[in-house]
């Protein structure tokens, strides 16, 4: 039943940690890095057709950009020997360039040596540093710490600190196809693709994976997060590998993709945030970053090429949505979004997650005051977006079993066709977005924020979005009755969509409209200094921050609900 929340902790599917793919990977870390480095070299060489001149060009570009980055954008997490390393690359490049006696092949050889050094360094840098002890420790800190806090706050009295009345699972509700996920994780390789609204997501997902009894997943986390020591510790413990968004050179990107692909082929369950970064606008991601997604398709094709046609060689894509009443970073996210879309005049950098102190403060608030989170796990799909059955077999729309291998066949054998796989990646991306919308759970706060913003917009039709957001908040108010009936209209449409399987709703949405509205108003962006939506003393609906209201409203974007206004 979809409405039943999972309240118990599952047995681990692989009881012995030695069987965990991520532990195996950590054990073989050295060989694995070597393999990634070699495969990346092959990829780069084939991309440039083994042309020494092109390789030289790429090497020089990479060198130039890296030197620039070191100078202009250094981070705390950067290793100390960076200067030295790139200095060496520079001198070896100069040496080869000036050696006129080298023939074409010898020259290629020499450049390849340099390439090897770079890809090896990058692979080392990217590779995760999973340590089981740390993982165990982190997991217990998260669960123990959080549930203590929770109980201390909710159950009054001296003993409360030891009470077990509330567990974390009262707070974070997990719904959806969890059994299928657990089952498939024992049989094949899972790639989980969640929506991304908050920096907390990765820790949250890490915790959920462990509640579901799954071995840790590896995932790419922005290197910037490793600047903050508390995050660095958590991330490493959860099996994160590092993605440095400053490095956009071909060699880095190819190494990164190879790492992801090889890890999937190794059998490591992976986690991609397919939006690439937190959703700035608050909308469900509609354009996905396809780079990492393409590695899942490539890994699948490689498995087929290696004749791994059984379920053990199959890769499953599992979409997940995370639903909040409240996103801590909302003010800065929406400010980013508005300034990127171009028109807001001021722009202030302000990252709420910049210090460990602020994070702890938020966590305390979160767990003491209570704002529910729900995580819905979607149906597993193959890498082309077909649903799979309990045996992991792909099904077409009519429920017929089909062979994923056939997608990579032409003339009766598996062929490598980059352009084809690019197109498949687009198709998979579209399917994931579709599933996100289907498994998205509407909260009361989404409903009230959406309705209020649309009503305000309808009253000010002549204003464009940016003027609308600059309206003086004091002048905006909505009579309660009007607001309520509009909520009802949106609500009815949501129910109709739900009947078609296009969306899901949280259980608290089954109360009366007055209760839903109260619940929504109480919860929408509840910890912001300026509340996006309130009821004032005369009973009207008012806002203290239009851009925040816009952010929370966006959650219901993409369902055509705007047309109701």
């Amino acid at each position, binding site marked *: 039943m979809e409405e039943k929340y999972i309240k118990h902790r599952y047995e681990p599917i692989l009881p012995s940690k030695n069987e965990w793919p991520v532990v195996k990977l950590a054990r073989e870390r050295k060989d694995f890095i070597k393999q990634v480095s070699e495969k990346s070299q092959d990829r780069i060489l084939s991309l440039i057709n083994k042309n020494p001149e092109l390789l030289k060009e790429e090497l020089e570009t990479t060198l130039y950009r890296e030197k620039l980055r070191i100078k202009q954008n250094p981070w705390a997490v950067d290793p100390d020997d960076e200067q030295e390393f790139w200095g060496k690359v520079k001198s070896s490049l100069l040496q080869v360039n000036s050696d006129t006696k080298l023939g074409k092949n010898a020259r290629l050889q020499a450049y390849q040596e340099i390439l090897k050094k770079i890809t090896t360094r990058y692979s080392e840098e990217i590779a995760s540093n999973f340590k089981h002890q740390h993982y165990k420790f982190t997991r217990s800190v998260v669960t123990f710490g959080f549930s203590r806090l929770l109980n201390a706050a909710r159950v009054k009295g001296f003993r409360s600190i030891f009470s077990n009345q509330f567990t974390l699972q009262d707070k974070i509700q997990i719904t959806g196809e969890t059994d299928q996920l657990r089952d498939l994780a024992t049989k094949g390789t899972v790639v989980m693709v969640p929506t991304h609204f908050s920096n907390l997501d990765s820790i949250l997902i890490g915790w959920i994976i462990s509640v579901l009894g799954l071995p840790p997943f590896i995932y790419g986390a922005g290197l910037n997060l490793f600047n903050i020591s508390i995050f660095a510790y958590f991330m490493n413990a959860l099996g994160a590998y590092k993605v440095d968004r400053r490095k956009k050179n071909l060699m880095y990107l190819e190494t990164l993709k190879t790492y992801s692909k090889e890890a999937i082929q190794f059998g490591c369950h992976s986690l991609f945030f397919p939006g690439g970064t937190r959703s700035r606008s608050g909308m469900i991601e509609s354009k996905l970053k396809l780079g990492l997604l393409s590695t899942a398709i490539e890994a699948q094709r490689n498995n087929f090429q290696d004749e791994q046609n059984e379920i053990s060689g199959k890769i499953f894509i599992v979409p997940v949505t995370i639903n909040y009443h409240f996103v801590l970073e909302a003010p800065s996210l929406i400010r980013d979004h508005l300034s990127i879309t171009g028109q807001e005049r001021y722009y202030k950098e302000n990252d709420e997650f910049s210090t460990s102190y602020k994070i702890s403060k938020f966590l305390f608030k979160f767990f003491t005051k209570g704002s529910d989170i729900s995580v819905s796990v979607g149906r597993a799909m193959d890498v*082309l977006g*077909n649903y799979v059955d309990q045996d992991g077999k792909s099904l*077409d*729309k*009519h429920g*017929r079993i*089909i*062979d*994923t291998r*056939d*997608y990579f*066949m*032409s*003339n*009766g054998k598996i062929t490598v*066709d980059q*352009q*084809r796989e690019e*197109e*498949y990646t687009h*198709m998979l991306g579209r399917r994931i977005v579709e599933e996100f919308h289907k498994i998205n759970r509407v909260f009361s706060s989404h409903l009230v924020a959406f309705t209020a913003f649309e009503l305000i917009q309808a009253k000010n039709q002549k204003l464009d979005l940016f003027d609308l957001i600059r309206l003086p908040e004091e002048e905006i108010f909505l009579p309660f009755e009007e607001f309520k009936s509009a909520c009802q209209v949106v609500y009815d449409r949501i129910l109709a969509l739900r009947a078609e399987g296009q969306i899901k709703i949280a259980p608290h949405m089954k109360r009366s409209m007055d209760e839903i509205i109260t619940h929504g108003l109480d919860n929408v962006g509840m910890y912001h200094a300026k509340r996006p939506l309130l009821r004032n003393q005369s009973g009207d609906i008012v806002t203290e921050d239009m851009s925040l209201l816009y952010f929370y409203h966006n959650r219901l974007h993409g369902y055509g609900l705007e047309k109701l206004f």
Partner: protein
Amino acid sequence: MASKNFSKTKQIGVVGIGSFGATIANMLAEKNQVIVYARKSEVVDEINSRHQAQGRNLNPMIKATDEPGEICEACEVLFFMVPSSGFQEVARKFAPFLHPYHLVIHGTKGLCLNLPPGQTLDTVKKLRRSQLLTMSEVIQQETVAVRVGCLAGPNLSTELSQGQPAATVVASKFNEVILEGQRLLRSDRFQVYGNSDIIGVELSGVLKNIIAIAAGALAGLGLGENAKGLLISRGMVEMVHLSNALGGSVKSVIGLAGIGDLVATCNSENSRNFTVGYRLAKGETLEQIQADMEEVAEGINTVKIIKAFLETADLRAPITENLYRVLFEDLEIEEALQFLMKYPFNVDVNFV
């Protein structure tokens, strides 16, 4: 059961054996073994015994079957050459036998509807983009075939079957489909271009039929080349805007499948759509014309669908709108022409 002795070598399938289907089957048979699917067993027998399909001569090497499973089993590449009115049904019939390795290329210049069961165009009246489908969208909706392409361009069957020089566009998002289409069809009399904007190419072929009916009407009224030049150029502008609103790119309309096909169809009495317009202008009614036409003129249905789409789109398409009134609301052609002449177009080209 049709003949079972298909050989193991790679064969090419052609589904539907109307005039265009027969022409393509013959062209394919020059270089490949071809199997044809026909719904009626009489037609299958006719092909297998007399090498003719409804009177049209076929290459004697072409075999026929009425079993979708058989043709899907024997071929990796299938050409769907069925009219849009039967396309969804054929796609559904083939769905259980198609696999993701199949390449499907279609040559149908029409649109289908995507409505909930029980609904028809007459009950909904208005159409959103999601409620109408190009043929490649039908294939992807109904079957697991993803490597889908389409054929479009100035390809009047009569001229092709006489071996006159011509060219076509194979459009697909997949390069391999384009390459395969070129490999199979290209000959010294037939040039094959590639285009990755499949929706734009399909729409070009679909929308040009509307203008072809109008061109027939002008010819039927006895008007000359000035009027035709006017119609073709304004017609193209209308096609560009409609195609854009439906998800195609401007470029494809200017290409072979758009302007190329438009010029060919607007000058040809061999074109069914042209004939519809021509006979209308000569005073016949739509029922009379449809009653004695051997194959459907896709344009009639297209006008209806596009008219319903215009109800929801923020767009004017004067030629289509007036043609609709002529076809279905008994507006006199002369009046429609008057209306168009007074219509306040004032910019020549407003899309580039």
